[in-house]
């Protein structure tokens, strides 16, 4: 059962040691009950007297063995136990635990009292669960009231700590459960979106490949565009799912030695038709002797694809995109830049552009806004590679996205 020290009383301990008035009531508003367990009747009497001198309201009960003490503790509320060291024969742990079990309170304060004080005994008693240790020949009203007061305060603090720990554990469990729910939700959304995309893609493909009959050049072109849209939709769904992985700490990299010239060239060749479709000039400037990097190739392609998609989306027809890759010997890293002369980004947006779900609205192009996940994913992937990512942009003039990867 818990006992309480009122804040008022506690502050008095700190500032007015000599005039300290010990706690008069436990949490239930009852006067404190102190149990003295000692087989020496003279000692029991002496300590009872000392306690009464501390305050006449403190209730003192006594017994001569731990067995009787357990019964007493089971029958009534005890706020503090003074336990004779001699009784426990130096093996205090079992006795102290038995008393705490009897009280059904692991924080029940037990103060060990010994005829012959020594530091080793004190340390041993504290290690075995005692709240404090007192040498009998040094017991004064002041020392005893401090021991009782401190041990009860310590027990109260421990109980509070326990409660807080339990609350924290519950909060952690709750967060874990929510994490699982989020993961499961994204998984369901991803699955539910990809199934119809599969059907749409395949029917477009059947028309495109003339499986369902001959098509005109115009229809063929329309189907090609639809197929491209299906593929972009798939990438967006995958981004959504990856964002959930990041949130739940499950985005794992599979790093392998990677030929970066090949990786960048391949990804740009995938992106080139889309840039052409938007009537943009796409130039690739790549050093032919880039070092091999330890990266997750699929993820780095995902970063490049995301930056390219943004460059295409936010650059007007007739504009240009320059992709360059170089080895920065001084920094020991590979630097990849995606530069466009599109709408650009204002400095107020640039600061937050890699944040999750952040939206900016370049020149009112609402319909062009994405989910606010692509750049967030880019930054997460690059940072997981221990690289850096940044943007340098001027509104109305264009943007330069740069990411580096350690070599």
């Amino acid at each position, binding site marked *: 059962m818990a006992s309480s020290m009122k804040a008022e009383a506690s502050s008095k301990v700190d500032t007015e040691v000599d005039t300290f008035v010990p706690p008069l009531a436990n949490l239930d508003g009852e006067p404190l009950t102190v149990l003295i367990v000692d087989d020496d009747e003279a000692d029991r009497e002496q300590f009872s007297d000392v306690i009464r001198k501390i305050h006449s309201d403190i209730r003192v009960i006594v017994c001569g063995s731990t067995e009787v003490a357990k019964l007493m503790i089971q029958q009534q509320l005890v706020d503090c136990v003074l336990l004779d060291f001699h009784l426990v024969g130096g093996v205090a742990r079992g006795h102290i635990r038995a008393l705490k079990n009897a009280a059904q309170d692991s924080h029940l304060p037990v103060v060990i009292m010994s005829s012959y004080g020594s530091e080793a005994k004190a340390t041993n008693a504290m290690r075995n669960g005692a709240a404090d240790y007192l040498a009998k020949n040094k017991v004064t009203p002041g020392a005893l009231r401090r021991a009782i007061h401190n041990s009860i305060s310590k027990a109260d603090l421990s109980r509070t700590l326990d409660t807080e720990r339990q609350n924290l554990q519950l909060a952690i469990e709750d967060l874990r459960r929510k994490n699982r729910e989020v993961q499961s939700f994204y998984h369901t959304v*991803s699955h539910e979106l990809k199934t119809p995309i599969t*059907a749409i893609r395949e029917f477009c493909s059947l028309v495109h490949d003339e499986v369902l009959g001959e098509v005109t050049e115009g229809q063929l072109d329309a189907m090609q565009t639809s197929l491209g849209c299906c593929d972009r939709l798939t990438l967006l769904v995958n981004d959504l799912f990856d964002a959930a992985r990041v949130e739940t700490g499950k985005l794992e990299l599979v790093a392998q030695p990677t030929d970066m010239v090949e990786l960048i060239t391949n990804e740009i060749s995938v992106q080139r038709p889309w840039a052409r479709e938007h009537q943009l000039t796409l130039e690739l400037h790549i050093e032919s002797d880039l070092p091999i990097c330890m990266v997750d190739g699929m993820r780095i392609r995902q970063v490049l694809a995301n930056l390219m998609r943004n460059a295409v989306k936010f650059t007007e027809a007739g504009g240009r995109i320059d992709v360059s890759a170089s080895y920065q010997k001084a920094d020991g890293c590979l630097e990849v830049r995606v530069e466009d002369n599109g709408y650009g980004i204002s400095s107020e947006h640039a600061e937050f552009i890699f944040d999750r779900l952040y939206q900016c609205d370049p020149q009112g192009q609402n319909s062009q806004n994405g989910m606010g996940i692509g750049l967030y994913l880019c930054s997460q992937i690059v940072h997981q590679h221990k690289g850096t990512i940044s943007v340098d942009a001027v509104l109305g003039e264009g943007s330069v996205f740069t990411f580096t990867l350690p070599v």
Partner: protein
Amino acid sequence: MGARVPRFRELVDTKRVLLVDDDPLILRALRTRLSYVGHDVQAFSDGASALCGLEAWPADVAVLDINMRGLDGFQVSKAIRERYPDCRIVMQTASKSDEIWGKLSHQDVDAVLEKPFDSKVLLALIENLAESDKVDG
């Protein structure tokens, strides 16, 4: 304007292909594609019917969806492996869950396709599996 693509009709070797997917649209689209190039196709929307169908019509290749009501793709593939060890198995899934992909890595299947996929990849896969059958045989 995109370049005109050739019609995908040249077929090297007709195969009996079992399709199992509980999404009728995907089933119809894939069946159309595979039949068009000359494969002999049987399509089922659930695993139990597919296993029944196989009794009278042993397939060379089974293309199985994983998330299905009733018997799922894992159960169907296990049953096919036990009863028809020569049948090649291609799994297809829209799922990205670690649980599914973890199970897939321990499953005795010949190939896995993540939806959405280009059905021409599936055609090539069926052809390759048939070729490897010839080599094996």
